C-alpha cells in the first residue's frame, strides 16, 4: 500500500470531508474496533435509531415532498401551491416576506421595496385566509420563526372558521428563533423574551393541538451562513437542548413535548458526510433525550426531520448544473432517512424559482423515490465500514461543540457572547479561501468556467404587489372593529407583562384582524428589540 509506487500514487497528499475530517484510502474491520451493532446502531425503528425511526421506512411511506412557496400577493402564492399540488407535491411549505418576518406591516417605512419579494406578505388574517382558500389545512409547514406565535394563531383562527377542530390539525410551525440569532439574522426581540414566546407556542400545542409540531429546530440556516456539517449538528443539538430546558422550566414533562419536536437540516456537496450526519443526528437525539432528559416514551427518542438542500451549495454560474447537485443532495437525504424533503431550485441564486425550476425540483424527488430503487431497502449504507466510521466521528466532533456550549451556560449564552456566530464566520472564510485558492473545486466557478449567457429565465415579481397589499391593508383597517382590536391588543400587553400564555390572546387579536405590525409593536413595547453584535 506504499504511496511511493508511482503506479498507485494519489492525486492529493490528503483527503478530507468538507468539514475537514480526514478520509482514508479504504476502511476495513480494523476501523470498527469496539463497534457493537445492536448497541451503537440497532435495527431500523429501534434505539438509538441510527438506521431510521421506522422499521419499514420508505417501504412503508415515501417521504413528504414539500417545496417552499411564497411570493407576490397571497393569491399568487395560493396559485403556486395549487400548481405544485397538481404536479404531485405531497404537502405545502409556506414562506413569508421580510417585512412580515420582521413584524412590520406592508406600509411601514422599513418595508419599502420588500413587500412580496422573498415570500408572501401577511399583514392580517385576511392574507392567510386568501392564501389558503381551497387549500386543506392538513400538514402545512410554516417556515416562520420570528412571528410564529401570530402564524399559529392565524391557523387556529382559520380552522375555527372552517369548523376544523384544532385537536385534529397536523402540520408544523418552524418557531425556531435561536437559529436566527446564530445564523441568517431575522429576529425582533431579545433572545430571552423570544425563548418565552417559543415556549408558549410549544406549551399551547401540547395542551390543545396534540398532532401539530410546534417547532422545527432548523440549523440548515446556519449552514447557509457558512457552518460546516459538524457545526450544523453541534449547534442544532445545543439549540435543541436549550428548547428542552426552557420547556422543562415551564413545567412540561419531556415525554409530553419531545415527541412533538421536529428538526430541519441542510444538505451540502459532500455526499457521504451528509448521509453520516443524518444518521449521527438520530443517535445524538436518542441518547440526549434518554440520558440527559430521562425521556421514556419511545416517540421522544425518535428524531423526525426535514431536509432542505442547501441554497449555498448552488452556483449562479451555469445554473443547470444545480439540477445535478440537487439530485445528489436529495439522494443523501434519502439515504440519511429524512421524513420530508425540499429541494432548492436551480435558479434560486438568481431569484424566486420559476414554475419550470420548481417542477424540475419536484420531479428530481419523484425520480429518486420511484425510479432508481434506493427506497426498496432501509438504510442501504448501514454497515459500510466507511459510513459507520464517519457517523461515529461526526457525532464525536459535534458533541464537542455541545460540551463547549454547555460550559458557557447553554446556547442562549453562546449566542449572546458571539461564540456560535464567530465559529460560523471562521468556517465561512476558510471555505471561501479554499475555493479562491482552487483547493476546493466548484464546477463552473473555479474550474470549467464558460462565458456565461443569460439563457435561464429569471422570475419577476409584479411591481404592483406593494401598492395592492397596502390598499388591502388600508381597507381592512377601515372595515374592522377598532374596539375589538384595541381590547385584544390590551390583552396581549397584559399577558406579555405577566406569565400567561401569549397564544390565546393572539388568537383573539388575529380574529379581530389586528395586523402583524400592531401585535409586534405591543410586544416590542414590552420586550424591547435586539441588535446582534456586528461580527465579521
Amino acid at each position, binding site marked *: 500500500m506504499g504511496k511511493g509506487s508511482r503506479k498507485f500514487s494519489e492525486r492529493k497528499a490528503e483527503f478530507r470531508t468538507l468539514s475537514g475530517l480526514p478520509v482514508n484510502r479504504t476502511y476495513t474491520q480494523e476501523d470498527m474496533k469496539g463497534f457493537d451493532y445492536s448497541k451503537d446502531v440497532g435495527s431500523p425503528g429501534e434505539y438509538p435509531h441510527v438506521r431510521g425511526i421506522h422499521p419499514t421506512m420508505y417501504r412503508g411511506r415515501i417521504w413528504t415532498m414539500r417545496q417552499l412557496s411564497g411570493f407576490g400577493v397571497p393569491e399568487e402564492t395560493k396559485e403556486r401551491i395549487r400548481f405544485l399540488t397538481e404536479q404531485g407535491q405531497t404537502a405545502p411549505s409556506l414562506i413569508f416576506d421580510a417585512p412580515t418576518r420582521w413584524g412590520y406591516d406592508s406600509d411601514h417605512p422599513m418595508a419599502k*421595496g*420588500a413587500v412580496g419579494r*422573498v415570500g408572501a406578505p401577511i399583514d392580517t388574517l385576511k392574507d392567510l385566509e386568501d392564501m389558503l382558500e381551497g387549500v386543506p389545512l392538513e400538514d402545512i409547514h410554516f417556515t416562520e420563526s420570528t412571528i410564529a406565535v401570530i402564524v399559529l394563531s392565524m391557523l387556529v383562527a382559520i380552522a375555527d372558521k372552517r369548523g376544523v377542530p384544532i385537536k385534529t390539525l397536523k402540520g408544523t410551525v418552524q418557531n425556531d428563533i435561536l437559529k436566527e440569532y446564530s445564523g441568517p*439574522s*431575522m429576529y425582533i426581540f431579545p433572545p430571552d423574551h423570544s425563548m418565552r414566546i417559543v415556549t408558549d407556542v410549544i406549551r399551547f400545542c401540547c395542551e390543545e393541538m396534540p398532532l401539530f409540531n410546534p417547532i422545527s429546530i432548523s440549523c440548515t440556516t446556519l449552514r447557509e451562513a457558512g457552518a460546516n456539517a459538524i457545526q450544523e449538528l453541534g449547534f442544532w443539538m445545543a439549540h435543541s437542548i436549550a428548547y428542552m430546558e426552557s420547556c422543562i422550566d415551564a413545567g412540561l414533562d419531556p415525554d409530553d413535548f419531545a415527541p412533538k419536536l421536529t428538526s430541519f437540516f441542510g444538505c451540502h456537496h459532500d455526499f457521504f458526510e451528509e448521509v453520516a450526519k443524518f444518521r449521527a443526528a438520530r443517535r445524538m437525539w436518542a441518547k440526549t433525550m434518554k440520558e440527559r432528559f430521562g425521556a421514556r416514551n419511545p416517540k421522544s427518542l425518535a428524531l423526525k426531520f426535514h431536509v432542505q438542500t442547501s441554497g449555498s451549495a448552488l452556483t449562479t454560474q451555469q445554473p443547470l448544473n444545480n439540477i445535478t447537485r440537487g439530485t445528489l443532495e436529495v439522494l443523501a437525504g434519502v439515504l440519511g432517512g429524512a421524513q420530508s424533503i425540499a429541494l432548492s431550485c436551480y435558479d434560486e*441564486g438568481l431569484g424566486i424559482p420559476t414554475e419550470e425550476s420548481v417542477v424540475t425540483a419536484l420531479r428530481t424527488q419523484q425520480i429518486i423515490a420511484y425510479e432508481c430503487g434506493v427506497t426498496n431497502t432501509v438504510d442501504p449504507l448501514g454497515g459500510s465500514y466507511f459510513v459507520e466510521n464517519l457517523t461515529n466521528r461526526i457525532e464525536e466532533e459535534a458533541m464537542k461543540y455541545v460540551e463547549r456550549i454547555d460550559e458557557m451556560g447553554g446556547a442562549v449564552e453562546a449566542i449572546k457572547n458571539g461564540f456560535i456566530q464567530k465559529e460560523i464566520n471562521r468556517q465561512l472564510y476558510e471555505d471561501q479561501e479554499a475555493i479562491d485558492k482552487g483547493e476546493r473545486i466548484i464546477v463552473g466557478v473555479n474550474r470549467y468556467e464558460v462565458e456565461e449567457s443569460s439563457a435561464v429565465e429569471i422570475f419577476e415579481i409584479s411591481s404592483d404587489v406593494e401598492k395592492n397589499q397596502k390598499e388591502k391593508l388600508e381597507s381592512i383597517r377601515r372595515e374592522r372593529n377598532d374596539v375589538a382590536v384595541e381590547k385584544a391588543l390590551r390583552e396581549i400587553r397584559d399577558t406579555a407583562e405577566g406569565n400567561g400564555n401569549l397564544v390565546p390572546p393572539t388568537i383573539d387579536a388575529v380574529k379581530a384582524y389586528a395586523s402583524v405590525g400592531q401585535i409586534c409593536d405591543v410586544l416590542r413595547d414590552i420586550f424591547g428589540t435586539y*441588535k446582534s453584535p456586528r461580527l465579521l
Partner: protein
Amino acid sequence: MPFSHCRGVKSLTSRKRKRVLLAKPMLDGHDRGIKLVAKGLKNAGVEVIYLGLLQTPEEIVEAAIQEDVDVIGLGTSMGIHKTVFSDTIDQLRTKDCGKIKVIGGGSIPQRDVHALKEMGVDEIFGPGSPIGDIVNYVLVLP
C-alpha cells in the same frame, strides 16, 4: 465633520488606504455575501466599516460622511435593490456627496443593471461575482 468628499474638495492629507463602508440595507438579513466581501477587502488592505443589518439609506449616507469613505457598498438579496439604491443616491445628492462611489452586490439580475447605473450606481457585482473583482475595483479607484 470631515467634508473632503463632499463638494469635491480633495483631502489635504492624501491617504493611501481606501475606506469602504459596507451595509445591509433595510430588512435584508442575508449577510453571508457581504461578510465575504468585507473579509476580501480587509485582506487587500482596505479599511472596512461594516454597519451590519437594518440600515436605512439615510443612516448609510450619514455614516459614510462621518467615516469619510471612498465607497459605499450595499448588498441586497431580496429584490429591494431598485428602491434602496435610488434612495441612497438621492440622499448622497441631497447632502452634496456625489463623489462617494456607490456599488452593489447580491441577487441583482442583469436586466436591472442598466437602470441602476442610469440612476447613478457606479458598479454592480451581480450573483456569482468573484470577490477579487470587487477588491480590484476599489484598489484602482483614483
